[in-house]
């Protein structure tokens, strides 16, 4: 399985995701933002960080970069695309995923381990998880408050496009366990073809027992099969 990690100036989780991918036996390449061609890839990862300093608006400038056109083309051709944190923000800026990520409700950067629930375990990203499985996973963001319009929200629910929701350690999804104010506790979503996943939590931080846990492993192993 070949993967490409897009590196923008200001990306800072690029090394972390490449370490995780290589650990999971992906053949990974780093792709610099000024490149105009993507290497042949089965998976494209848009990593976390502060692309272009997140100036103007999180992900806004990266959404207009040279390489991102290639990502859009590949995504439209069905390539698997994973956007994590800033990567999720960038994907919403390109329109590959609908909706926006607003400032966290408390207006503060939040870094902690939270619980999320696997809402759909029948996608290329999640098939190794059990349905409703609860994962403990790290979040680190200032703008993770997902918002979208009513029609899209209906579509997300009807077509089972919500990937993960914030919950407590028993799987209860409600306002109390929503770290950032996101709509319906949404932590990650798919596009309608389910070949693109955008998520605020960091699965690449959860593949090593020594520093955290291995709750992110199955996301990558799902992709391998």
């Amino acid at each position, binding site marked *: 399985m070949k993967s490409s990690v897009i590196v923008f100036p*200001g990306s800072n989780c690029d090394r972390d995701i490449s370490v995780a991918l290589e650990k999971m036996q992906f053949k990974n390449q780093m792709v610099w933002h000024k490149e105009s061609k993507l290497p042949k890839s089965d998976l494209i990862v848009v990593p976390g960080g502060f692309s272009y300093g997140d100036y103007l608006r999180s992900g806004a400038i990266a959404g207009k970069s040279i390489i991102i056109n290639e990502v859009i083309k590949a995504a439209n051709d069905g390539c698997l695309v994973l956007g994590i944190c800033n990567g999720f923000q960038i994907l919403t800026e390109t329109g590959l995923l609908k909706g926006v990520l607003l400032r966290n409700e408390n207006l503060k950067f939040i*870094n902690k381990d939270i619980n999320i629930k696997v809402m759909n375990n029948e996608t290329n990203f999640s098939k190794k998880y059990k349905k409703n499985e609860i994962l403990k996973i790290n979040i*680190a963001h200032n703008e993770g408050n997902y918002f979208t319009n009513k029609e899209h929200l209906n579509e997300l629910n009807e077509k089972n496009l919500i990937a993960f929701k914030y919950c407590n350690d028993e799987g209860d999804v409600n306002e109390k366990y929503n770290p950032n104010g996101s709509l319906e506790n949404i932590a990650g979503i798919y596009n309608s073809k389910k070949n693109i996943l955008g998520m605020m939590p960091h699965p690449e931080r959860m593949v090593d027992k020594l520093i955290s846990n291995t709750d992110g492993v199955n996301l990558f192993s799902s992709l391998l099969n």
Partner: protein
Amino acid sequence: MKITQKIIDKHGLKSEEYTNIKKILKREPNLLELGIFSAMWNEHCSYKSSRKHLKKLPTKGKQVIQGPGENAGVIDIGDDDAIIFKIESHNHPSYIEPYQGAATGVGGILRDVFTMGARPIALLNSIHFGSPNHFKTKSLLNGVVSGIGGYGNCIGIPTVAGETKFNDTYNENILVNAMAVGHAKKNKIFYSKAKGNNKSVVYVGSKTGRDGIHGASMASAEFDENSEDKKPTVQVGDPFTEKLLMEACLELMKDNSIISIQDMGAAGLTSSSVEMASKGDLGIELNLEKVPCREENMTPYEMMLSESQERMLIILEDGKEKYAKSIFEKWDLDFVVIGKTTNTNKLTLKFNSETVGEIPIDALASKAPIYDRKWNKKKISNKRIKIKNLKKIKILDSLIKILSSPNHSNKKWITNQFDQMVMCDTVQKSGSDAAIIRIHGREKAIAVAVDSSANYCKSHPITGGKQIVCENWRNLISVGAKPLAITNCLNFGNPENPEIMGEFAECLMGIKESCEYLDYPVVSGNVSFYNGTNKKNISPTPVIGGVGLIRQFKKPMNHHFKKENSIIITVGKTFGHLEQSALYEEVYSISDGRPPEVNLINEKNNGEAVLNIINSELVNSVHDISSGGILVALAEMSMESNIGVLINKPKKLTNQFEYFFGEDQSRYVLEVDQNNLKNVEKILKESNVFYENIGATQKTFFEIKKEIKISVKELYKANNQWYTNY
């Protein structure tokens, strides 16, 4: 322009210093030259009041690769790995403009570390604020915390440990100290010493603006009612550009292009060029019209004194310009050859081919003034405060009061605003005795911690100085690391006041004594004087940042109780010293008396025994006993895991408050499995360490036999409520 007395005063130069300048130049300086002298001779850059005392600190050891005098200290952690680290203050700017002040404090210390060839792997901070009730505290706290997070989170270096304290003494002068730790290969360390005549001097990074002009001079004076006017001297940080600069520098450092490199920190282009030339016994010539400027019509004076952030000066090997330039262009950064090294031993400044200033390098560096300031010994209070004579308060109420106080309540609400996990090597985050960072791709790890004890230092500077080094050492031991070396940030009041200078001199004596005995040398540091407003000085607040090594890292050691029915052992003798304790401060509001004595023999002996026990994998959890004594230490261990304890009353007829809240030094709490107890006791006995078996862990309840009983959840609640109402 004629240099008038008013201009000299404005530059913070004393009249005898000005006379000296004229003597060195054999003429009157022009304004540019005066500005440069003022930037290099101020307290912040010249260490003129502190140098004499700093010299006495131990800075050598077989673990030390580079001690003080470089951008940061370098230590050996075995194989081909080195750790590069330093702590620095950004107190004055943070009080005036908390967000930018704190952010650029982080940015500055990171540059000190990556300038030397290290990839930064951890950030720490020690921040001190005034009383939570003071009208400025809340906004200062918010600004500083967001500034630290804003910079570290963006650049992608985890902020892994720190301390936040409150005390009236910082009402008008907060402290913001930032520490950065980086990892480098031993054979790839870069220094600031220039070598060779006629080598290219290259400016890289951000453009120069008018921000921060005379920032270092501002940090060398007390505040007054016009402090707000100093806002323009605070720099503005751009972590995004720093990230690019860091990656570009580290990329260039893989090659052999760099002769020497120096970041433009305090006093910007002036101090970086002077330092490089001075260390290399060379001169340097700069063509200032080539300096990339952000604003129009900038004068040589402004360029030389600007403290715009995210800039570096590099001296390149011949023929490497094109290659180096391609790297900086890749990262969209400026790269301009602005001058060359010379053999004149002078700083020569040209602007459009005209010489606009010329000063002998040694006048600015090695011959900068040094003061042997008058200092007075601290008058130590002999007042003893007997707990028996104080109003009776219940033990449980006292414990709750301490745990729910701003200083002792849980600080996760602050640390959760910092990305602690980026880089995926943070094995242990904030909230433990020390954070643990794995060396990327290796089996070893380092432990890092910062500590201060201003109350102890104020009441007895020598003991206080001794104690903070020991406490820091103990914190590293508690997570199973062998302490290697420290960096210190010495925050004090006005050194022209002999009482303050006395606090400084005596704290340093204490620091020296502990560092020497524990083989825990000082490899880098920073002095911040003039912390005070309108003659009101802060309490002496030296901050110690320590680094330790865990050679074979298997699993993190921390203070969270692991299971029920483990035996609880205290290591070290409990005498019951209460003066300067959390009990007296938080419950009785008493600040008289001396801090607890530090016995270095016991310190070392106890610590080495505990480290031996941890390394032998005989212990479930370890916590050092510090502020709040045994009871607060136990509560902290319980609250992290929701496992309770059953503690026996002290056997001898000691006062229970003295026993449970006393802050005697060199002590630890160990949680030991029944079946490991024998082996643990064997090690302790063989090491001649005093220990007591004081009880056992149990389900749910935090209990002292026949004295207190409370659910751990309730303790947790008390410990986590203060900030929700703040």
